[in-house]
């Protein structure tokens, strides 16, 4: 075994005698494999399948991403699609402006739980209520990862964060805000689903949901949201290898995965 070159130069493809490549380290719309995210972070996994979905739905030259503030913002550095970085929490409003002006485009937001459930809760709910034809994606890791692991509106009960040192207490801090459920309850929302990237199966499920969300948008059916549970071992203060288990044990009981609403599905 040898170390393959880390040069992000796609000319130097590796060829293996008697085998064909079935998965490449770099998605089509990816210009680099390097990023500064922490070991074991779930965001980059979500990034790649997002880019794959855009490619597979032939939306590469119609896609405009609007990205909030969080660790995931760095997707802008590695993706080869139009991106607008906007203010923390405001992506659904910004995306509304973009979509109304470029109605043929596939407009999506990429946000975190801090971004969407805390700072930007009004923006996402109002956009959903308006039945805005955009796709909102929330990478929910239950903390403000980027600022070092404080409690967000999505942190689960009992979760220890830098601002809930004894664990999130219902008495002091209340309960988490289930964004997907709230959005799904609004008539303007046409497609809502929640998935997780802590297992290979979850990754595949996430990809299916993202596809469906973009299809909802391009069909004009209304607002779509996919909430993706991702690992943040840094903000959870657990070893990287414990991330997937923490996600399923601590987060999933509060945030069950699966489709919540699908207006495209023939009745």
């Amino acid at each position, binding site marked *: 075994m040898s170390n393959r070159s880390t040069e992000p130069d796609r000319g130097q493809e590796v060829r*293996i005698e008697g085998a*064909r490549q079935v998965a490449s380290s770099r998605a089509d719309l990816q210009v680099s494999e390097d990023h500064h995210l922490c*070991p074991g972070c779930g965001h*980059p*996994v979500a990034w790649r399948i997002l880019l794959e979905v855009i490619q597979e739905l032939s939306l590469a030259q119609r896609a405009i991403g609007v990205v909030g503030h969080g660790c995931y913002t760095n997707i802008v550095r590695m993706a080869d699609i139009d991106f607008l970085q906007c203010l923390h929490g405001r992506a659904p409003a910004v995306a509304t402006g973009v979509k109304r002006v470029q109605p043929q485009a596939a407009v999506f937001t990429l946000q975190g739980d801090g971004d969407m459930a805390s700072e930007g809760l009004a923006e996402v709910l109002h956009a959903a209520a308006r039945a805005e034809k955009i796709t909102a994606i929330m990478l929910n890791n239950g903390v403000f990862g980027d600022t070092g692991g404080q409690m967000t509106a999505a942190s689960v009960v009992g979760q220890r964060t830098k601002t809930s040192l004894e664990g999130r207490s219902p008495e002091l801090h209340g309960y988490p805000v289930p964004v997907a459920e709230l959005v799904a309850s609004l008539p303007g929302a046409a497609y809502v689903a929640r998935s997780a990237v802590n*297992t290979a199966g979850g990754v595949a499920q996430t990809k299916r949901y993202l596809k469906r969300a973009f299809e909802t948008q391009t069909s004009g059916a209304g607002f779509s949201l996919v909430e993706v549970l991702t690992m943040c*071992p840094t903000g959870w203060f657990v070893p990287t290898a414990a991330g997937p288990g923490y996600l399923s044990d601590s987060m999933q009981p509060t945030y069950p995965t699966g489709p919540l609403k699908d207006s495209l599905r023939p009745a």
Partner: protein
Amino acid sequence: MSPTVVSRGTVTIDVERCKGCELCIPACPPGVLHMSSEVNRTGYRYPRLSPGCTGCQACHAVCPDYVFEVYKYDRPQLTEVSPGPVPAVGGAE
């Protein structure tokens, strides 16, 4: 007697990009990935492949650092393994 292991696929592992998170290890259904004891230039241990890869892409799916490329062999490869410590193999030079 050395048992024979069938590999239907293989992977390349870009060890310098690996950040040692170990997410790929339990994700591999046949359990053919295990962490190295050496570290890369940044100081992280990284996965090594033992024979028996199925080319299922699970490692690729879960790896946050885009370390893997996955290949399917046109014909399954057979490897004789000794009962001792599992030798590491890498798909590509």
